[in-house]
């Protein structure tokens, strides 16, 4: 076994894992926000996320077609794509809630879950239909912005790309903003109140429906931001490519303690690191007997272990059953 190699790539794998982790964390926020308030798995969030990516690419392609992509300073372009993507995804999430979830509130838990799965299928094909009509293709490529591909070579085996920094920075910014909104604003207080006890919150004069819409708006917007960053980082999107990252992000949310914002970040990071290390090292350590393809097995096994030994996730509080 080549020990030098194992040690040599360690920092790079660590960095890869962190980048991936923040990506998961951003997507996970959408699941966590909604779960925290409604105790409901918004299965369609993976499509809301990928919808953001599509809106982002349309913004960039639009700018490109009028020749502004290289004309404007890149942070401005990026922020524009992010803002539009966030807005679109947020609105989509609110609409989905209105149409497919709100009529089902109070029904047994499985019912809205199935509805969410239905919405998820519907959105996949809807995005495909619209893009096929509009661009005659539904595998869309993010236009490259040269600045983003710059790399800082720290050593022979380690380098950092601007893209990864943008992802990490963007994710941190979103997490921080979300933390402020939830913990420091009146709206945040209202959201927490609704999460705690809907009936009591409505007695206190809080418009529960409005707050739930708001929760979906914020969660959806986070998903949209994640979508745009996902596109920027990995370059290629199609309507079905939100599904797997969505699943992983959901795993991350559960891992960290679903309903818990710092938990989503922690869960994302843990999962990202686990995946990165498994993919990079498994094959090296086992002499090729097991390879990168086992990373999902590891991820899910860890999820199972966590849930068995710490059912509320890493940061979730252990809730007592009320007899």
């Amino acid at each position: 076994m080549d020990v030098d190699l194992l040690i040599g790539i360690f920092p790079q794998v660590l960095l890869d894992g962190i980048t991936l982790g923040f990506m998961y964390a951003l997507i996970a926020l959408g699941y966590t926000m909604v779960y925290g308030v409604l105790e409901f798995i918004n299965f369609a969030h993976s499509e809301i996320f990928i919808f953001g990516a599509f809106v982002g690419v349309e913004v960039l392609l639009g700018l490109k077609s009028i020749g502004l992509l290289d004309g404007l300073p890149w942070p401005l372009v990026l922020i524009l794509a992010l803002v539009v993507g966030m807005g679109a995804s947020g609105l989509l999430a609110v609409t989905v809630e209105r149409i497919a979830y709100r009529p089902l509130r109070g029904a047994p838990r499985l019912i809205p879950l199935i509805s969410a799965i239905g919405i998820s299928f519907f959105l996949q094909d809807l995005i495909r239909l619209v893009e096929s009509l509009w661009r005659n293709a539904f595998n869309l490529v993010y236009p490259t912005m040269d600045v983003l591909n710059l790399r800082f070579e720290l050593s022979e085996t380690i380098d950092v790309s601007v893209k990864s920094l943008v992802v990490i920075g963007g994710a941190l910014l979103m997490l921080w903003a979300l933390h402020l909104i939830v913990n420091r604003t009146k709206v945040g207080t209202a959201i927490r109140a609704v999460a705690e006890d809907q009936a009591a919150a409505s007695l206190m004069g809080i418009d529960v429906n409005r707050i739930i819409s708001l929760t979906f708006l914020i969660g959806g917007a986070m998903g949209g931001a994640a979508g745009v960053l996902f596109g920027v980082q990995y370059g290629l999107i199609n309507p079905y490519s939100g599904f797997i990252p969505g699943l992983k992000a959901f795993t991350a949310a559960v891992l960290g303690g679903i309903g818990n914002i710092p938990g989503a970040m922690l869960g994302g990071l843990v999962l990202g690191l686990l995946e990165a290390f498994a993919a990079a090292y498994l094959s090296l350590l086992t002499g090729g007997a097991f390879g990168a393809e086992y990373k999902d097995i590891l991820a899910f096994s860890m999820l199972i272990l966590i849930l068995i030994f710490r059912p509320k996730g890493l940061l979730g509080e252990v809730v007592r059953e009320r007899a």
Partner: protein
Amino acid sequence: MNRHRGYLVLALVAILAVALLPASNLEAQGSKGTVKIATQSPLSGGQAALGEGIKLGAQLAVEKFKGALEKQGFKVELVPFDDQAKPDVGVANAKNIIADKDILAVIGHLNSGVAIPSSEVYKEVSLAMISPANTNPVVTDRGYPNVNRVCGRDDVQGVVGSEFASATMKAKSVYIIHDKTPYGQGVAEFFKADAEKKGIKVLGFEGTEEKSNFDPIVTPMKAKNPDVIYFGGIYDQAAPFFKQSREKGVKGKFFGPDGMDSSDLTKIAGKAVVGMYYTSAAGPASELPRAKAFVDEFKKKFGKNPEPYAAEAYDAATMALKGIEAAAKGGKLPTREDVATAVRKTKLPNGITGDIEFDSKGDRKKALYFVLQVASDDPGKWGNNKIVKQLAIAAPAAPKK
């Protein structure tokens, strides 16, 4: 209340059934009969783009060459089926196809996993199947008289690749990635086996279902610094992989099988893939005039570049039509068996993917393999890719049972 609604629904279905009955009999009027060619490929879901390419390629060929049969008084139609890339759906469709006596040939499938069980069904009625994309050796090694393919075989293509890597690229070491599909892994394994035989050092062999984030695979690969990186798979996964590899400073040369053959490769990966090699059974538009004509026609008709396997599907459908023509001598509607026999004997000297002629197993007698080099990072110039090497290899004989 509810019961009444149930009856209402039932009544509605009944009315609809009666109202729509004629639809299924539409085709029966005014000709000697209808000849249908079915396609089976995934039209919905994640692999829809490739599946649609197959359908459109076949559609183009049918529209272009149906004239001869129509002159004989037949009506010619293409019937597309969606197999959803799922074996059980493929089999159900296959049963539906064999139930429609007008269907005389099937062009399909995309996935060997669907093709193998479905072709068991076609075999029951000796319905000719011509596969544009199933490179898994098993497909023809079963020796069914009705199953053919115009595409190459994994074992051959892998060998072509390793031959080129060793002789022309002078590779000392390779790193092999595949996509964990029967196709990608198949090609990659044959490439690996033959490369090892030729003395090339295989530094890594990894499979991944990942579609977006290749960081963790690239990092160890970069550290091992291989001469050549071979990706057994399809462009939509390979392109982001190549792109991310270059961005991370991987220096080795890229190489892949015919799954790379799409302008989307450069559209996605841009400069990263300029100069990379890929093996293909289809000739490049730049050097084969008929291939260029196909690309132009396809673009004109459908507004986009043909996906991989669209050209193969085009050739497969052409073969099917020629087979039917040959079997229909005398102007009578041929039986399926006649068609299957005729297809096996048909020769197509100027297909887009070269001279086509089947051997006794249904493989191409002499499949022409090209090694091509990506010329430009402009997807519009995909057709300018140059042939670097050309090999004609016969399919291996079936393994002894």
